[in-house]
């Protein structure tokens, strides 16, 4: 087996020389070895390749990016591979570049043949090239994963979660060769390699190539109904294309970022299901045994979040009859049961009084009495539109994530962004900073408005920001000024997210952090527009869920 990472790898040639090429696309548990040999901030795919490739006897890399070059360098220095090569891949695709690649292929063939002891087998090569002929995209409507390579488990998850066929058009997928040249059976080896070099360079270009014209076709297929745009942490190539597509593409698109480790299933499911919802392609959900009863007129929404579980009960006229905010605790089910008990206590009824209970939030799949579930994106949109029909952008900052959701005039979601695996700019960030300042959250909110001197917390990372705060405390700065600096830091991060999502005023803010007026004021300053605050910003998701329950069951 010879491990490889890039679609430009000449796999047909390697097979003709006795090799068995295997794409390094697995996820790894951690990057212990890779970070010991390189650096934590190297592209996560490259680190995963280093973890996987370290154990393989044969490896070939292409000169495709800085991180890959360094993985090759490190493995070469460490030694121990029976065959290790780096193919010098041109950035251009003109005649000179093609000739350079041809020569590189001929050199590689000589080296690999000497290693395997297998002479070039033309029949195998030609058969493999025929197998790699351009294959059609799925017939009928389909979705595509575009951008940086995706791990195999993540691609399988995406395919399982989305209701249409999903084509892999990432930098490591979408590999196809043109038809063989006339007389391929008898062409001299050098001429055959010249054709092969041209064939490899004619594939839809990845972002490291100089001419990207060929990438346009990827998004112009009439059957394409939506795009899952994938980026890899610390790979910068595809963030650029995503930013450009956001401006120019009319198709629905969602961005996923991963790091070649197993991804948190809950957050991924939320994003993918919300994406499917925005496409109008919902999943069929088995009806859960719930507390519904004939003739009941109560509709409930329950939002099971990381910190709190919130519940709202409506009647048919959309009046809020009861609500509850309880701590989620260690188990989502327990928090949900406590919220249900609380609203039943307020209403003086039992669970059988509810016609429908729609669940949302990370724990939505684990609420036994829920009759249906939706993502918090859809529910927040529903709730916010109900509370403030003029709002076009929802800024939701909860305990463990932050979201920006864009709405149209009917309240339908037109786009959204969520933060990634990072606590910066979330409620957890404020909690950590409050602990450092030895304040509780309400006190922190109050003190943050009493600032006198402008301070800047420049670090974007929670851990670095904490050390900055400690330095400021040591310098005897007033805690109100430090809190204001923290609020500005969250506001700057959030405003950038609003801008990336294409958010426009009027704004509405939901989630627990909306209770911190220091953050709200700083954000208003950054956005240059006022932000509407609902009376109970924590309940927006649950309210939206209750409204959806009413619409669907009532």
């Amino acid at each position, binding site marked *: 087996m010879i491990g490889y990472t890039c679609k430009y790898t000449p796999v047909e040639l390697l097979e003709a020389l006795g090799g068995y090429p295997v794409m390094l696309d697995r996820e790894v548990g951690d990057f212990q070895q890779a970070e*010991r*040999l*390189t*650096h934590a*901030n*190297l*592209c996560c795919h*490259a680190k995963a390749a280093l973890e996987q490739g370290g154990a393989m006897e044969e490896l070939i890399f292409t*000169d495709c*990016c*800085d*991180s890959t*070059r*360094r*993985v090759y*360098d*490190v493995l*070469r*220095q460490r030694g121990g591979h029976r065959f290790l090569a*780096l193919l*010098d891949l*041109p*950035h*251009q695709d003109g005649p*000179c*570049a093609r000739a*350079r690649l041809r*020569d*590189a292929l001929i050199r590689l063939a000589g080296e690999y043949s000497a290693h395997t002891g297998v002479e070039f087998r033309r029949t195998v090569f030609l058969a493999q090239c025929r197998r790699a002929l351009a294959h059609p995209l799925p017939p009928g409507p389909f979705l595509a994963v575009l951008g940086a390579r995706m791990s195999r488990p993540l691609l399988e998850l995406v395919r399982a979660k989305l209701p249409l066929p999903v084509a892999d058009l990432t930098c490591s997928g979408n590999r196809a060769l043109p038809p063989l040249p006339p007389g391929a059976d008898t062409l001299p080896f050098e001429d055959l390699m010249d054709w092969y070099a041209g064939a490899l360079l004619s594939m839809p270009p990845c*972002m*490291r190539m*100089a001419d*990207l014209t060929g990438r346009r076709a990827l998004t112009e297929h009439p059957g394409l109904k939506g795009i899952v745009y994938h*980026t890899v*942490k*610390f790979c*910068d*190539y595809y*963030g*650029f294309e*995503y*930013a*450009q597509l*956001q401006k120019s593409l009319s198709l629905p698109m969602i961005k996923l970022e991963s790091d070649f480790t197993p991804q948190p299933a809950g957050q991924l499911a939320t994003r993918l299901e919300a994406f499917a919802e925005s496409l109008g392609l919902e999943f069929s959900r088995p009806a859960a045994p719930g507390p519904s009863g004939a003739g009941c007129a109560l509709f409930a929404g329950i939002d099971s979040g990381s910190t709190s579980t919130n519940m709202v009960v409506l009647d048919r006229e959309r009046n809020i009859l009861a609500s509850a905010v309880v701590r989620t605790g260690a188990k989502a089910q327990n928090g949900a049961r406590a919220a249900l008990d609380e609203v039943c206590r307020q209403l003086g009824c039992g669970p059988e009084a509810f016609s429908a209970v729609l669940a949302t939030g990370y724990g939505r799949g684990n609420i036994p009495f829920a009759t249906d579930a939706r993502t918090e994106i859809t529910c927040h949109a529903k709730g916010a539109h109900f509370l403030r029909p003029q709002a076009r952008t929802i800024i939701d900052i909860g305990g463990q994530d932050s979201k920006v959701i864009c709405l149209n005039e009917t309240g339908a979601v037109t786009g959204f962004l969520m933060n990634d695996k990072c606590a910066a700019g979330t409620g957890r960030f404020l909690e950590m900073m409050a602990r450092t300042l030895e304040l509780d959250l309400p006190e922190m909110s109050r003190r943050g408005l009493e600032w006198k001197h402008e301070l800047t917390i*420049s*670090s*974007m990372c929670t851990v*670095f920001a904490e*050390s*900055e705060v400690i*330095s400021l405390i040591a310098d005897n700065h007033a805690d109100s000024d430090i809190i204001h600096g923290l609020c500005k830091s969250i506001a*700057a991060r959030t*405003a*950038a997210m609003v*801008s*990336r999502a294409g958010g426009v005023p009027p704004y509405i803010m939901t989630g627990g952090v909306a209770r911190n007026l220091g953050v709200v004021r700083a954000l208003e300053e950054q956005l240059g527009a006022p932000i509407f605050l609902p009376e109970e910003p924590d309940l927006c998701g649950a309210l939206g869920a209750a409204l959806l329950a009413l619409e669907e069951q009532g």
Partner: protein
Amino acid sequence: MEKYIEILGGIIQRQALRNPRAARGLLNAAYSWVRFSGRRSKKPGVRAPSDGMNSAVAGTLVDSFRRPQQAVMVNIFFPCEMIHALGLQPMFPEGLSAYLSCTACQHVFAQKAEEAGIPETFCSYHKTMLGAALTGVMPAPLLIANTTLACDANQLSFRQLAGHYQVPHAVIDVPDQVTQDAVDYVAGQLRQVTAQMEELSGRKLDENVLRSVIARSRRTIQAQRAFLDARGRVSLNTTMTGELCSLIANHVMLGRPEAEDYLTRLLSCAQTAPPPDPGRRRVFWMHTLPNWQDSMKGLLETDRCELVGTDLAIDYLGDMDPEHPYESMARRVVYSINNGPALRRVEASLTAAKQAGAEGIILFCHWGCKQTMGLSQLAKEVFEAAGLPTLVLDGDGCDSRNIADGQMATRVSAFLEQLEGLRP
């Protein structure tokens, strides 16, 4: 950082979003002052030549702000002799980013780029320069031209800039293979891009002028080699900014009289400087330097430490041949220690560090630079096996948002203590 610079930086940041032309005007005024004052510097030792070179670099920024249609936007590794010979101005945005950070106004530009979707993990020099373009502070040039050396960021940023400005864009593809074939391949591309410059500017390149520019590059590199020969025997009052000046003199400014003058003056300082100061630890630096950071200045530019060189300033020290200008420029790029396997750069740095009499090496992992981060542990292993203690230091050459200042200061301070403890 001086209070007045912080105030100026604050004003520029506000103006960058409201009135980019006004922000550009303020930067122009600030850098005109750097140009004016640097020429007249009377500081002792190597600080006056550094100020002189700094003045010349500030001058390129001012000129490209004032006459952008006579400027070619290039990356720092792009060989610029044909630009000098055509009487055009090289405009290198990485340099602008470094200047913006020293003017305390880089945040607004980095944030603007991030708002436009540029990844937070991207190199901050490139992110800042993209923000400078997106705000409208950096004007559109005549042409954008970049090499694929030395990093991926070039491929992304300069393409993005060309799209933003809607100006022609040329890419010089530098193969990873360090061979004569690769030199010929690059030389061909350099001829093409020169023709493109002629066409766009309406100027005809005089081959004799190009030869004389290459001859000046040759003399400059010869002066640099002589300086490096002497460096290990003397003590100099170097600064991080001075090391960056050497980097620029050996790249974008190579071929200009200011670069030759700078290296000649450095050599002259070295010839009359005192022997190594036993009280100062001699540190060789790898990669770019955070010259905006007061805490680092407080450690590296004092009577406790002496910076004795940096690898980026010496990435090619071969002779240039005026009779083969394109091949000479191409050779400089292909044979740069930043091209090919990491071990080339590591071994060349080790040789340079030893030649400069270094006692230790700081390998600076600038935010977003995968090239350097990726080789950091390999380099540390090689350097320490050769007896040179090495500190791998995470930081940022221009964006304070990505660093933990206290941690960095502690690490560098501890490293100097380590070197002090190792003195016989």
